[in-house]
């Protein structure tokens, strides 16, 4: 028993120095299980290929340059959509958060259109814009904008009224207050909104690529499905998972933590 605890202690110290290890180690049993299940062919290889097959496919696609291309397509689409979603969403969120009139007029509409969901728009978007970049961008912007707006509104409204008053009594004009008080005060929530938005956004991207795409990782997966080639599907899923995991955990979450905790605004 104590031996086990010593082992665990060693593991904890190791991961404290290199947190990456804590992320990677849990996957080893999964990988081992996967390899084992495919080795004894519980399911036909056609249905469930093994890790080696997927790795080989990865190498092949990288070599042919297809994977980097598709990856780039997907990432660029997401970036463009996220950019516009944020650029449009933050001002809208500020407006709705600060103006009761804007809130009354727009909030119910926001909730309803968010409920429709990005994917349901694909049908009519294809009629309007065909199968191109515009359709994709629209879907992603649509997806990203709602979490950004909603969280911005939340952030704006959670600023204590005394902070506004303090700024007023120190001579700040209303416009100045938006820049000096409202934006920094709402920033942690805005970043949370961005993070959520990106989470929904890349899913919308994959769905759009699957349904109406002609390139990108989602398309690759769907195309592979049509050809009956499971290996590429699995490869696609793993790549997506790893990519998003890295972006969310090692880039977005620290930013969220940094702004919130540094200023003591968010208690986790």
């Amino acid at each position: 028993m104590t031996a086990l605890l010593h082992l665990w202690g060693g593991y904890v110290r190791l991961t404290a120095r290199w947190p990456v290890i804590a992320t990677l180690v849990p996957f080893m049993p999964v990988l081992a299980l996967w390899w084992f299940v495919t080795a004894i062919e519980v399911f036909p290889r056609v249905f469930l290929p093994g890790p080696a097959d997927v790795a080989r496919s990865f190498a092949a696609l990288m070599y042919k340059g297809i994977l980097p291309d598709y990856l780039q397509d997907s990432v660029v689409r997401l970036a463009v959509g996220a950019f516009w979603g944020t650029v449009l969403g933050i001002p809208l969120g500020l407006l709705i958060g600060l103006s009761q009139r804007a809130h009354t007029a727009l909030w119910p509409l926001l909730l309803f259109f968010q409920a429709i969901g990005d994917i349901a728009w694909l049908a009519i978007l294809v009629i309007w814009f065909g199968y191109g970049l515009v359709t994709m961008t629209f879907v992603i912007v649509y997806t990203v904008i709602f979490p950004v707006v909603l969280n911005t509104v939340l952030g704006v409204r959670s600023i204590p009224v005394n902070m506004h008053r303090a700024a007023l009594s120190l001579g700040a004009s209303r416009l100045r207050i938006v820049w000096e008080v409202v934006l920094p005060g709402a920033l942690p929530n805005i970043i949370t909104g961005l993070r959520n938005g990106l989470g929904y956004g890349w899913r919308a991207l994959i769905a759009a690529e699957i349904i109406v795409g002609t390139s990108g990782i989602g398309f690759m997966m769907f195309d592979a499905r049509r050809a009956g080639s499971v290996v590429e599907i699995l490869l696609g899923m793993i790549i997506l998972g790893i990519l998003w995991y890295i972006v969310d955990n090692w880039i977005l979450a620290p930013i969220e933590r940094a702004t919130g905790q540094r200023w003591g605004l968010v208690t986790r």
Partner: protein
Amino acid sequence: MLRLRSLSAAATFGAPFVVLLTLWAVLVPYFEVNPRLFPPLLAVVQAGLESIGDGTLLQHIGASLLRVLVGTAIALVLAIPLGIAMGVSPLVSTFLTPLFRFFSVLAGIAWIPIATLWFGYGFGAITFVIFNAVFFIVTYNTLLGVSTIPRPVRNAAASLGAGPWAMLTEVLLPGALPNIVTGIRTGLGFAWRGLIAAEMIATNVGLGYMLFVARDFYKTEVIVLGMIVIGVLWLLLDRLILAPLERRTIERWGMVQRA
């Protein structure tokens, strides 16, 4: 007094929609918009009445909701006990957290291609996608919820003589409930989207299918009808099921910190 207030609240909520509908009814005919691009309000209403009349709308709604129901039910039955079991031990939960975060990240839509390969087209594949979307997220959230119950609370229960079953029902479940409910809400959100996406390509009945098949025939009134139905359904789901659930648990117990 209260009646009047909730009536006026409903009116304020509905007012923007009334304005929108009026604009729609007036502007589309005024600008002579091509009905193949965007339908006039009347056409959508007609399409709606038709599809209710011949039963197709209810068929689609029924099919979609059934898949959501089955997928979610199975997912919850498996996810919550699993999450609790894993969350109880800090060792296990720390170790497994990255794993479940990874699979939460993949939840739902990314599984569509492989689901259709494994289960073919139809009920199985779609329900699997929904199950998937809810399962990983709820398990992860349950795990998180249980592991963040303060040690002193669990110790207090133990020192007051709580056995394993009592610990489960009186401490672990209620303590993790806010996170579980948040997980259900997020999971359902992904599941609903996954549902529509999957139905667009993998079946011949359901709301997603209804949208996509109408696109082939440029029947924009059916598309817009479908979009409105989807929006309304989700709002109903949210207001009638999720919000009361959250109110009864999270807000009532004053545990609003959603990590």
